[in-house]
């Protein structure tokens, strides 16, 4: 017994002496003991790469990345209340860059200009100018690090369209025609009828961007600086006219060729349905392109095509307020008489730092955001569907092999990147709303009115009136001149 005790004591002493020697040399790690609380929206997309890369970054730097997620509809409020009440429990945010219009003037976000200029590993110039200027910069200063590039596009089943002799949609009428023709056909060979069109239309989610993708080509025809939300002189909303009514009609009609419970579908549902072969067409950000090559879930690998958002031959004539046929003067950027207005919806998820965070935590948070955006990481993440990150670096558009390596055929990669690049280069690209309290304009007034319209709770005129009255009330409340100034500034950014 005594021998046993002696052995145990010796072993214990040995463990106590040896363990510290075996521990990693913590002093070499720059952010040892630093915890960074990062707030973003409930994944899996966006949160997934942060949660996956966090421990990886921690092993290199010693920092602990704690990713906190909330539903998308709660993200804005969570950020604002955390900073405004000086709770400051979150040190970094991955959020919609549109909201900088509220966060930057209030002094909540850290100015990252100097850090970015010193950071060679970030390769700032490799980020496409639009994302550097729209998603990252406010008032000439850099406040966010872009992690994602966002354009909405239309995806179609290339195999099905080829089989039935249809071409990809160029106009919204084409979209409806294809959806009508393919609705209730078996598109994935499982013996059950599928859907002509699948669009996420759930309320309090991300569906209002889908609607604006349709409305944009009716509302903006004279280049990016014309804007699609307000009249530039009066700041009156462009939401109560024939063009807007036509966009509402198309949006409603897509539902006739969609799943029965489409009103409850979020982007996760429409993406899942499309990559499992249940839909002929869908409207989405770049995620479908990479989800379609995921061997675990996709049944449509190399059967997917992407096109720039369909356009229209009739647009809003702002002088008369009527819907008018495209003419060279009315639609100077039209292609074969069709006005395309690719919508940079959302702008792309971007990372920012809470100005009130402790200095060392800010350093660690910046290092993490930079690490996420550096080509070594982002060039991989943008090719993985689940990340929700879409290409935003010039190198990601040029390097086709990156996509081939991820599982895309070369033709599919060229088609996918070509659609994004065509949107990015369009002189009539539609910028998202970036004025104070844009979240109230879009996520509340527009979203609620659209939801009521889709549920047939109100008619087209009632919907247009509700949106117009709601937007006018916000503009009057916040100051028309101030809102107009912010709107004009947001439209004049360099691309």
């Amino acid at each position, binding site marked *: 017994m005594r021998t046993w005790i002696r052995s145990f004591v010796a072993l214990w002493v040995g463990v106590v002496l040896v363990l510290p020697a075996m521990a990693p040399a913590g002093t070499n790690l720059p952010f040892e003991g630093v915890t960074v609380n990062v707030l973003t929206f409930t994944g899996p997309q966006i949160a997934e790469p942060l949660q996956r890369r966090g421990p990886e970054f921690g092993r290199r730097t010693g920092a602990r990345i704690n990713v906190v997620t909330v539903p998308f*509809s*709660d993200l*804005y*409020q969570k950020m*604002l*209340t955390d900073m*405004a*009440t*000086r709770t400051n429990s979150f040190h970094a945010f991955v959020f919609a860059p549109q909201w900088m219009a*509220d966060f930057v*003037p*209030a*002094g909540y976000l850290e100015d990252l200009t100097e850090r970015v200029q010193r950071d060679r590993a970030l390769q700032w110039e490799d980020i496409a100018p639009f994302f550097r200027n729209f998603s990252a910069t406010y008032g000439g200063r850099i406040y966010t690090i872009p992690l994602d590039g966002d354009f909405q596009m239309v995806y179609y089943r290339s195999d099905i369209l080829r089989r039935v002799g249809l071409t990809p949609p160029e106009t919204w009428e084409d979209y409806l025609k294809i959806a009508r023709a393919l609705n209730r056909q078996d598109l994935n060979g499982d013996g059950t009828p599928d859907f002509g069109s699948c669009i996420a239309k*759930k*309320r*309090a*989610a991300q569906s209002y961007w889908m609607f604006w993708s349709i409305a944009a080509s009716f509302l903006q025809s004279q280049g990016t600086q014309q804007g699609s939300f307000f009249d530039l002189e009066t700041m009156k909303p462009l939401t109560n006219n024939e063009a807007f009514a036509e966009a509402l009609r198309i949006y409603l009609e897509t539902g006739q060729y969609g*799943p*029965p*419970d*489409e*009103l*409850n579908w979020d982007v996760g549902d429409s993406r899942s349905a499309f990559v499992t072969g249940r839909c002929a067409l869908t409207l989405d950000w770049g995620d479908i392109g990479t989800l379609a090559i995921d061997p675990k879930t996709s049944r449509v690998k190399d059967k997917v095509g992407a096109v720039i958002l369909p356009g229209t031959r009739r647009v809003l004539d702002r002088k008369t307020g009527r819907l008018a046929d495209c003419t060279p003067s009315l639609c100077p950027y039209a292609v074969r008489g069709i006005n395309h207005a690719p919508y940079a919806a959302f702008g792309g998820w971007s990372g920012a730092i809470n100005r009130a965070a402790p200095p060392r935590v800010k350093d660690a948070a910046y290092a993490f955001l930079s690490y996420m955006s550096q080509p070594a990481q982002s060039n991989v993440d943008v090719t993985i569907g689940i990340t929700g990150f879409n290409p935003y670096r010039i190198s990601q558009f040029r390097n086709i092999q990156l996509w081939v390596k991820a599982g895309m055929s070369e033709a599919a990669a060229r088609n996918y990147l070509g659609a994004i690049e065509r949107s990015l280069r369009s002189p009539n690209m539609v910028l998202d709303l970036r004025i104070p309290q844009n*979240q*109230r304009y879009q*996520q*509340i007034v527009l979203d*609620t009115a659209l*939801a*009521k*319209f*889709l*549920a047939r*709770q*109100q008619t087209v005129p*009632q919907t247009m009136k*509700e949106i117009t*009255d*709601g937007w006018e*009330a916000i503009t009057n*409340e916040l100051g028309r001149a101030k809102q107009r100034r912010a709107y004009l500034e947001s439209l004049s950014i360099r691309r």
Partner: protein
Amino acid sequence: MRSRTPPVPRAWAEAKPASSAHARLLLRSAAWLEAQAPKVFLLPAVALVVALSIVPLFVSLYLSLARLQFVPGGFVLQFVGVANYTKLLVGIERPHFLGVLQPPSVPGWIAGGLAGAVLLAFLARSASRVGAGAFVGRCAFSLVCGLCVWLGMHALSPGGQPGTLLTTLVYVFVGIPVQYGLGLLLAYLCAQDLRGRRFFRVVFLLPMMITPVGIAYTFRILMDLGKGPFAPIWRALGLSEVSWANDPWGARLAVMIGDVWQWTPFMFVVLLAAIESQPEDLLEAALVDGASRWQAFWTITWPQILPVSSTAVLIRLIEAFKIVDLPNVLTNGGPGTATESLTLHAYMAWRTLDIGGSAAVAYMLLFVVTFVTVSYVQLVHRRIVEER
């Protein structure tokens, strides 16, 4: 006349201090302390109630009269008077709160006319039976009920839509009678000498123990006609292409079914206790005298459980107005705003940091709940309890 001075402890009174002045001071101090003791003991509870209930009530009242604005480094509350209430009642939030109002249809006029006649008859009857104060109260009750009827006539007519106020009233006044009816039926069955009744008592109680969010998710899956567990049945019936979520009344019905499923156990357990506590000799005597089961229930059991029933309904009445989790998770308030309750309306406003608007909705809810519960207590509950 009795002295209000509290008694001095005997041991203190018998003590012999060095000086009599000192003793008097000591006695007076002791008496004062004794007199203050109840207040001191009550103070923590009162302070807690004031801090946690009264202060927030006034703060939220102020918030409902203000607008939150963000400024560099923080926020300010700008006083805007009754603007948030005006917005709800006559401004841009009116369709959301009161609904889209259209001229009533013929059935609407008939229903409204009938309801108006009932209210007038109620007032005429009250005029000869109650005192002046009570009559004024009944006039106020009739007026508010009349306004609700008017709102219903206009919002439920073709082209109209109920707002969050009417939707909440539907949840309450349709849901509670159904919950009560089912709860009473189950309680009556479980009070019988049946095999396995103990098992069923536990089973019937389970829904009340599950978190409402869990119930909402469960119903969301159950009611998915295309993918849910009953999908093969719906497919066989040719209903897989139908979605309750697209129809406003279908979605409201789904919310009410979930609410009934969750809260029927509350009625069940209260009514079971009431049924089981009634004296058995009365029942036995009635049955021996040849009364049927129905007669025994209607003439003996029912009058005895009525006061307990009324209390259970009162508790549910207060609680049901606050429904939020089911419509939020099950339908997100949709389609459109069809299933949005007043609490969800307030939450949606709060989520966009329209704190003033949110507080105004919450205060409107408080007015409605207070009016309904006071009316219920005055007109129903008190009468039932007093008659007993």
